[in-house]
């Protein structure tokens, strides 16, 4: 019998398993993932890590390994315009210096594989078994443990099964947990570009009529792009030849950083908001996108995932230290109460932002421009948004998010 089986070897599953094993080495934790070993090395995407997530990675002892590949975001510029506008009115700028209490940048752009790689290394040094090409086929929950059937024909008896298997979580379906889903009919095109001149740590978000177009600084003269279009347009762009793609990209990116060149692949991800109706069931918990897949407009998906990890790991470790049954509903309910309000608020905020910004109706533009202008002029409100972006608002934060061990 094992204590915890984590299903999903992405950044959520891995950091959760590492956090649990680090705080409570006596717990028997195993991880399964259907992907072949090493598949994560082909992930070309980069993510914006807020200060809170960085704190968690520092507590897990992996931030030092990620940092050389991380590019600090020192400045954030938000504009509202049509692609063809020669000059884009700047409504909101966040300057990095002195924005956080420690004078740290409020976010870093990091390549996904640097995060995954460093977490796998940590898992290895904790002797945490990671079974690749293995998935959970089925499970049956009894009063004291859950019987899990794996795709390789093996079985596990665990006190707790944690699903970190993404927005289309199969385990969530097996557990009978329903979701609420909103489709946007939009897709996010993700790619990396190289530009002539340095970005100087500036992130930009342009609210174009088809949806937000965001550039995020990476190491070297490179930026990561999240480019939102109607799904059919996005698919057409992905399939078009390089010349057309770069031409369309340049129209939106502008020429301020000189000539652009697309490096690495380009992919489109359909956008939507999926919220699980419950985050826990007896001997079962959801974390990351399996609990809440949100629109990437504010870059919060990954960061919400790390918040889940911090709250769930702390809930489990504290219960274990009190001798409580870590899989019992009364224990897991604490995690659910802790995370649901925040998730719901973030989900609704990003949903409202997206609906507000993805259109070209003049009165709406006027109102939102006025809104952004007001935010820029009120220091209190602005620092509230910066705290939000850092992921450090709200009392009663899980300890790892403020840099403390569990």
């Amino acid at each position: 019998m094992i204590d915890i089986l984590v299903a999903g070897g992405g950044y959520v599953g891995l950091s959760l398993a590492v956090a649990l094993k680090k705080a409570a080495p006596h717990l028997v934790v195993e991880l399964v993932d259907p992907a072949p070993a090493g598949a994560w090395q082909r992930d070309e995407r980069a993510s914006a890590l807020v200060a809170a997530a960085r704190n968690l990675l520092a507590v897990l002892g992996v931030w030092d390994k990620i940092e050389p590949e991380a590019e600090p975001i020192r400045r954030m510029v938000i504009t509202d315009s049509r692609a063809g506008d020669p000059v884009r009115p700047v409504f909101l700028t966040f300057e990095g210096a002195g924005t956080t209490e420690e004078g740290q940048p409020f976010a870093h752009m990091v390549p996904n594989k640097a995060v995954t790689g460093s977490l796998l290394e940590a898992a290895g040094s904790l002797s945490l078994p990671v079974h690749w090409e293995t998935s959970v086929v089925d499970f049956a929950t009894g009063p004291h443990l859950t019987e899990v059937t794996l795709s390789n024909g093996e079985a596990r008896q665990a006190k707790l099964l944690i699903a970190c298997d993404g927005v289309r979580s199969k385990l969530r379906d097996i557990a009978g947990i329903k979701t609420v889903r909103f489709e946007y009919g939009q897709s996010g095109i993700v790619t990396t570009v190289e530009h002539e001149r340095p970005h100087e740590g500036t992130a930009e978000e342009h609210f174009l009529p088809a949806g937000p177009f965001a550039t995020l600084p990476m190491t070297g003269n490179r930026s990561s792009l999240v480019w939102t279009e109607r799904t059919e347009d996005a698919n057409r762009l992905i399939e078009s030849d390089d010349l057309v793609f770069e031409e369309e990209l340049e129209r939106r990116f502008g020429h301020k950083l000189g000539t652009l060149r697309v490096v690495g692949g380009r992919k489109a991800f359909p956008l939507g908001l999926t919220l699980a109706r419950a985050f826990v069931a007896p001997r079962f918990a959801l974390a990351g996108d399996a609990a809440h897949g949100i629109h990437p407009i504010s870059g919060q998906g990954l960061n919400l995932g790390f918040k889940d990890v911090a709250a769930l790991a702390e809930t489990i470790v504290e219960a274990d230290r009190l001798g409580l049954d870590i899989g019992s509903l009364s224990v897991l309910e604490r995690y659910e109460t802790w995370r649901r309000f925040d998730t719901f608020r973030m989900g609704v905020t990003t949903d409202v932002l997206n609906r507000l910004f993805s259109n070209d109706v003049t009165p709406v533009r006027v109102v939102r421009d006025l809104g952004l202008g007001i935010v820029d002029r009120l220091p209190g409100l602005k620092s509230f948004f910066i705290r939000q972006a850092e992921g450090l608002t709200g009392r009663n934060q899980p300890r790892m998010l403020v840099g403390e061990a569990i």
Partner: protein
Amino acid sequence: MSETARTTIDQAEVDRFSAMAAEWWDPNGKFRPLHKFNPVRLAYIRDAASAHFGRDPKAHLPLEGLRVLDIGCGGGLLSEPMARMGAIVVGADASEKNIGIAKTHAAGSGVEVDYRAVTAEALAEAGESFDIVLNMEVVEHVADVDFFLTTCASMVRPDGMMFVATINRTLKAAALAIFAAENVLRWLPKGTHQYEKLVRPEEIEKPLQAAGLSVTDRTGVFFNPLSNQWNLSKDMDVNYMLVARRAKA
């Protein structure tokens, strides 16, 4: 037992809890409030015991090797976690039915607890002694509080500890712990607590002191509806806990 022997057993109370025994481990059943209350009282016990016996409360098995009596253990909600923290636990309850449920559950959980359908006075008479005696949510259900506490205290070893948790006999407690909990919030079945059976802190401390123990800490416990959790508080008017110690030999 001779007919004149004093007893701590209130048969009506034993019957009431026996009737609900099957629900002990249902986190959404009649004992839901106790499941919610468990973390705060376990943390109080673990932290005070760790400080006293020089243990690290964050370590694995912080109570390793300590002999613990959980008197009025019911279905074992407290006994199992104590055993998981490393203690050698005797779980005692006057209800055979409770002990049956507790034994079955512990076997399923793979936790070792020595459950016995026995009274405090029988254990004391048999000469049992413990490092920690737990008296959690029990004194408000016994027949003779003074005699019960004196009997329990007699089983505390030199340098040992006794924990007591109960509900104060105040108007505030009558309003919150009885009226609101049983009639408004419906957390507890009607008749779970009777006002006149509630016990004031001084009514606990006096017999304990007479039995040679000294009270070293007392705290209130309050429910925070926003966080849906119980927290320690200075206010001892409703739920409260206290610790007493016997001096070293």
